[in-house]
């Protein structure tokens, strides 16, 4: 009878996953410029955009710039897709997050197109977004993303993007 492998200590698992997430998020200057952070529960990610003066597009209302909203959704979509690719590699042991730094990141998917629906004015407060990979093929992926502020059920924007998957040398 084969002996079942002992589960990894919870801290080891958390450290590995958080290190991988940190590497792909903090390695991108534009994500840092906007101040976007990601919260993780297991493999579920929530993008958080803390409010800042420099995100304002209409000083009279005031409201978040439509371009910021578009960028926030696109960042949330790309990171979700990248994360889904890294997750399997990491959990199977093929990828060691310790080897990830800004110069040794896995290749990220490239945006082919991105469409944003503006549903409500972006208020001057924190915004949140969650993305869902609806189709992830060998070459193309389709990702939907929803963003809200105060109420999860009252979206202020949603988007859909198509992405070109990174080349994988191992075929």
């Amino acid at each position, binding site marked *: 009878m084969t002996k079942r492998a002992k589960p990894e200590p919870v801290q080891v698992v958390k450290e590995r996953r958080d290190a991988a997430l940190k590497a792909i998020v903090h390695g*991108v200057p534009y994500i840092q410029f906007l101040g976007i952070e990601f919260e993780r529960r297991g493999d579920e990610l929530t993008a958080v955009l803390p409010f800042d003066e*420099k995100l304002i597009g209409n000083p009279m209302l005031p409201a978040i710039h439509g*371009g910021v909203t*578009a960028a926030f959704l696109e960042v949330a979509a790309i990171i979700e897709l990248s994360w889904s690719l890294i997750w399997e590699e990491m959990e199977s042991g093929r990828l060691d997050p310790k080897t990830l730094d800004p*110069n040794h990141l896995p290749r990220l998917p490239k945006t082919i197109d*991105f*469409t*944003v629906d503006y549903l409500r*004015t972006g208020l001057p407060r924190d915004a949140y977004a969650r993305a869902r990979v609806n189709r992830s093929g060998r070459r193309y992926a389709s990702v939907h993303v929803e963003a809200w502020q105060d109420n999860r059920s009252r979206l202020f924007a949603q988007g859909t993007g198509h992405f070109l998957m990174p080349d994988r040398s191992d075929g």
Partner: protein
Amino acid sequence: MDNRKTAAARQFIEAIPHSRALGMVLDSLEDGVAVISMPYDPRFVGDPQTGVIHGGAVSALMDTCGGAAVMSHPTGVIGTATIDLRIDYMRPAKPGDRITARAECYHVTRAVAFVRATAHDADTSLPVATATGAFTLERAPARKGEGTA
């Protein structure tokens, strides 16, 4: 559009906090056509291995440019907001190059403006990205004796 009006529009657009943060400059604005450019900046990079600007920064430029085009439409627009914007990315922008967007408000109804836009770097032969969008339209209330559009 006369020079004084263009100067006022330039001041208005360059005073938007996020447009300032991205270093946007209004190059021209006339009768529903806007040209806005943005410098290359390492802080806007989306791919650290190639130094290519993030698509989100290009989206911000396209959105601002689209809104400016609507505001400059000759039918007396006093306010606009983006309803939807679709961006197609043709190729990566060359690291180091300034990105210039040109947006055209090609049709307006009473409440909606339709916009198409292109963005290019120093190589103007092939756009970096193209965009199409629909924007809301607010007009000044028509005075007596004037017909509505």
